[in-house]
């Protein structure tokens, strides 16, 4: 298991058994407030980094979720369709969103490390 890396658009990525597991950061879900619904991508869809591929709806707004890396969606977290609040309760664990199979040897090199992401959100933090 790798260290988590972060997209500026608030997705985290962790390479696990050769797949990129993707979720939303705690900062992002706190910004969203109460989550109502998550529209996840289709398994088998090919995605490229920076592309909006999913949507999350909260009581405040509907926001896009972006693919942090290139590849193919191999699995989505189906538990979220019946209870979207898992994302708020455990964004870095049970609340993961989808897995991406990536051909790239070092797929997360363009993403921020923990310190870089912390620095980015410091300006926006509550």
């Amino acid at each position, binding site marked *: 298991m790798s260290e988590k890396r972060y997209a500026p658009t608030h997705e985290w990525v962790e390479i696990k058994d050769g797949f990129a597991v993707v979720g939303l950061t705690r900062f992002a879900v706190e910004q969203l407030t*109460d989550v109502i*619904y998550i529209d996840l991508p289709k398994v088998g869809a090919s995605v490229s980094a920076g592309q909006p591929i999913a949507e999350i*709806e909260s*009581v*405040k*707004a*509907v926001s896009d979720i972006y693919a942090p890396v290139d590849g193919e969606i191999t699995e989505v977290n189906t538990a979220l369709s019946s209870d979207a609040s898992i994302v708020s309760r455990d964004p870095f664990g049970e609340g993961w969103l989808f897995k991406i199979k990536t051909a790239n040897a070092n797929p997360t090199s363009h993403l921020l490390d923990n310190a870089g992401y912390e620095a980015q959100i410091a300006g926006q*933090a*509550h």
Partner: protein
Amino acid sequence: MDKNQSTGLLFEISRPGRRAHRVGAPDVPEIPLETLFPGEVLAETPPALPELAELDVVRHFTNLSSKNMAIDCNFYPLGSCTMKYNPKRHERIVALPGFGAIHPLAPDSVSQGILELVYGMQKILAEIAGLPAVSIQPAAGAQGELTALLVAAAYFRHKKDYRTRVLIPDSAHGTNPASAALAGFEAVTVKSRADGLVDFEDLKSKVDNRTAVFMITNPNTLGLFDGQIAEITKLIHDAGGLVYLDGANMNAILGITRPGDFGADMMHYNVHKTFTGPHGAGGPGSGPIAVRDFLEPFLPSPVVVKTNNGYALDFDRSLSIGRVHGFQGNIGVLVRGYAYILTLGPKGLREVSEQAVLNANYLLALLKDAIEVPKGDRCMHEFVASARLLRREKRISAMDICKGLLDHGYHPPTVYFPLVVPEALMMEPTETESKETLEEYAKVFKAILAESAETLHHAPHTLGISRPDEVAAAKTPVLRWKN
């Protein structure tokens, strides 16, 4: 004082046999229903309608209405919604039999009065927009956006210039991308700069020969006028695209500048906001659009024209996108708007905007030391404060402040919009509020910020309902009564 009598659900206060009136014995022979309709189309049981006395019904609706926040009762600084006072004389005018008792299917020859009014309104809206052709059909702003984008799509199809993308700043109303998608375009987001205006470099990188329309709200949703507008419209026009002006914020610029003069090719009005029309809680609105001459052939059909024999509905429009609304749109709102505009005249309309901008700046000045206003210390007709620091330092969110305002009899500002400002509180006082009202509101607002987080987290304390479960309301709404 308790105002709860008869406010239960009508079905629950219903009692068998109770009624408001009785139908007398008919003076014609009675015919059994079964002889008029075949049995299989008749319901087995009559519909379950509530049975109530007239007094039950009057108390029910009067008491419920007294629980409402309304511009006639409360200061209502709901940003982007322009909750100005609607003069009562408009209600008297719109109820005149010449307006209130006419039928939309009556022939033109007996509808000359209302047709003249619509024709006059088309001319006035064209003048204020600086755009010559008007359709008064759309029912509200969002439908105006959609109609204009359908007009643009028809125009490009007619030119065989197939364009697929609509560019929209990230500070725009959510209706902009929704309208683009509904009109068959791909919505592409353009970033804002740190100061809230369009990031011109980002826009430039996204403009190409796929660009059909750039939608801009100016002044934007942060209450800032984008001074780059001439450069922006030139960039879009040089690429062969059209510029759409979201007219949501026209209350800031009436008689001061015109969208047509700063390069917009299409725009919508919100007659109910910028001019007049009781609104809130979903309508009715009126969202006429104004466009350049070369887009006129594509406007919805019919339009009102002046002929040698008076005014007429012109249906002979082969390139038109067709109807977008039954008859002539929400005509009652247009009648009120027409009365409002004629009452004020050109100078009066300019004063409306000057006073609206002055009021917003005064309120901003009263509040800026108490709450952060991140995008500048001057604004147009509204401004956006942020509870970001209050939330971090005192655990008071924008939502908590709004709930606290309810306890003091104020309608809250628009909250959590625009999305580019965290913990946003968007305030639009409008021109119809007095200096004293603004000062009193600012005093109450500051007093709320001084309350404890614990108190505010449970506000409102004085209303029948405190904090509804918003997730359940959105996810599992109860939309009908079931026994």
